[in-house]
């Protein structure tokens, strides 16, 4: 984007200030995340850069906070909880969200706008408000399950958190799948039916592969939402369901340990990898759809 020779003074000024603004935006977005990463290799139990680190002295760096994360029982339990809750919540979000998106894309469904608004409201309503509401709703639900179904308190705790996280994840799935369905050619399902495929076969062999990129992106967003979520789990869960973000939150308040930084770094790496997958899938789907007729 070179400046044309006939650019006016104003255009020149804008040309350069535009670049500066872009750079600033990137710095504000990325710097807080980047700064955490070297700190997580701190050899001391501090949140600051030590003189050794600034001198790039190898003695100033260590993996001990990572070691702490992988050996400490508290951290490992919370990691395990996160790895139980996030995938199950994601599966529920993906299944329900995909079905809802497909249903809402049918032309004959009444009150589509209203239904859509209700389904994606968890994304719009401030989290603390949803969390407060969920606290009351899920505590009565939990009591009912414990008393009437005789379920274990801990197990009920997991169900509560998983359901709450699934609700938070559904909007992402609905939005991404709806977006993929916009470009979905209805005559493909008709063609499949015409060739003798029943609706279930048609769904799994024709519709699903084509909307899969949207389903996976939605699923990844739902997963990250659950994996990073701290407010709702604090309200709905009990100590037995302490997730990774919760543990980080208490860690920050009670014992300021750089292990948090190590965990943060790991989470950033995981998030970046997942989002890379999303982007690659999006490109693939665009290629599939961009070149197809109609």
């Amino acid at each position, binding site marked *: 984007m070179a400046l044309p020779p006939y650019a006016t003074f104003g255009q020149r000024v804008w040309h350069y200030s535009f670049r500066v603004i872009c750079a600033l935006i990137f710095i504000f977005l990325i710097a807080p995340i980047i700064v955490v990463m070297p700190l997580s290799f701190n050899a001391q139990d501090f949140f600051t850069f030590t003189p050794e680190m600034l001198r790039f002295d190898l003695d100033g760096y260590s993996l001990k906070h990572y070691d702490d994360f992988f050996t400490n029982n508290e951290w490992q339990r919370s990691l395990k909880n996160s790895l139980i809750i996030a995938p199950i919540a994601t599966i529920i979000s993906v299944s329900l969200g995909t079905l809802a998106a497909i249903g809402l894309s049918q032309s004959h469904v009444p009150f589509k706008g209203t239904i859509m608004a209700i389904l994606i409201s968890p994304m719009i309503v401030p989290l603390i408000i949803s969390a407060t509401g969920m606290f009351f709703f899920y505590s009565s639900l939990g009591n009912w399950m414990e008393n009437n179904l005789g379920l274990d308190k801990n197990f009920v705790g997991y169900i509560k958190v998983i359901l709450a996280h699934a609700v938070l994840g559904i909007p992402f799935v609905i939005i991404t799948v709806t977006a993929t369905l916009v470009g979905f*050619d209805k005559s493909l399902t008709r063609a499949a039916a*015409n060739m*003798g*495929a029943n609706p279930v*076969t*048609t769904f799994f062999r024709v519709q699903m592969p084509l909307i899969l990129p949207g389903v996976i992106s939605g699923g990844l967003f739902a997963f990250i939402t659950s994996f990073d979520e701290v407010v709702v789990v604090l309200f709905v869960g009990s100590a037995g369901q302490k997730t990774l973000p919760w543990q980080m939150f208490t860690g920050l308040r009670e014992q300021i340990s750089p292990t948090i930084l190590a965990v943060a770094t790991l989470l950033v790496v995981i998030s970046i990898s997942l989002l890379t997958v999303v982007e690659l899938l999006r490109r693939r789907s665009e290629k599939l759809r961009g070149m197809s007729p109609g």
Partner: protein
Amino acid sequence: MANTKTKNAFVEFERVQKSYDGETLVVKDLNLTLSQGEFLTMLGPSGSGKTTCLMMLAGFETATHGDIRLDGVSINNIPPHKRGIGMVFQNYALFPHMTVAENLSFPLEVRKIGKSDREQKIMRALGMVQMQDFASRRPTQLSGGQQQRIALARALVFEPELVLMDEPLGALDKQLRETLQFEITRLAHELGITTVYVTHDQTEALTMSDRVAVFDDGRIQQLDSPDKLYEEPQNSFVAQFIGENNTLDGVIKEINDGVALVQLDGGDIIDAKPVNVTKTGERTRVSIRPERVEMDPGRLKPDAHTLKAEVMEFVYMGDLFRTRLRVAGIDDFIIKTRNAPDQIRLKPGEQIEIGWMTEDCRALDA
């Protein structure tokens, strides 16, 4: 007689009506019978109900009233995937995530046909459309014409007895359309498939079909062979819709011996063949094909009525001359003459006399 009728009737629409909103009928009282192996085209302007009829036959729409039968069995309550009808869509509807071979394999797999049988059938179907070399390509790597060939092969691969085509050539350029028109008719006749073809392109309808059903306003206006349709339209809609057509409005003066005397609004009197007019004094619209107008009165019957005409415009079209005339007060009367060595080339402003054989001038409803 009744016996042969049921035997020949492969597809039957009986008093079929369709309404989407419960108030207006998109299809009003459709009665249609197709015999096995017939190539029938539903032709009509958009919104005439032709596509709705096709969708009802495929099972994607349900008839509000009436009965649709396939091979004697009512299919009103059979879902689309159990009807066993092949279909070619306007936008091809090939599965973009499958290769050509996988696309063709799909209808065979859902029918649980074994792998070796499948491969054999796929290659045969691809052979029919000369696309054997493209089996491993993806639809997005093919041109429009190639995609439509594959769509055709996919509709034929499971050997259906009835194939529906919904404006399959609409998105292709003229030359490709003509090639594929020929190929589709050839395949349909070779394989003995019954075909229902929907189009709004009258040339396609005339060149491909055994019979053409002209749709308008939810009804079949005329169901006839292409030549009958063109030469003997039964009402003014059909006359106007099929081919180029000159119309003159007037009133019936008398009907005698299969010849109607029509007084045109300009005052001239002409002879016409009464088609769907019966009463003296009735308003009528007479229709004459541009190529049936005669400029040489010597070639008409001696007592034939002729009209005075003034040449407005002469267009050289290569094989044809197209001349626009002012006749009986209207100035868009067209005549077409063949570019033969002895053909007269008219000049604007020339006064001539025109006439026609009575049977070429059809007095239709106004």
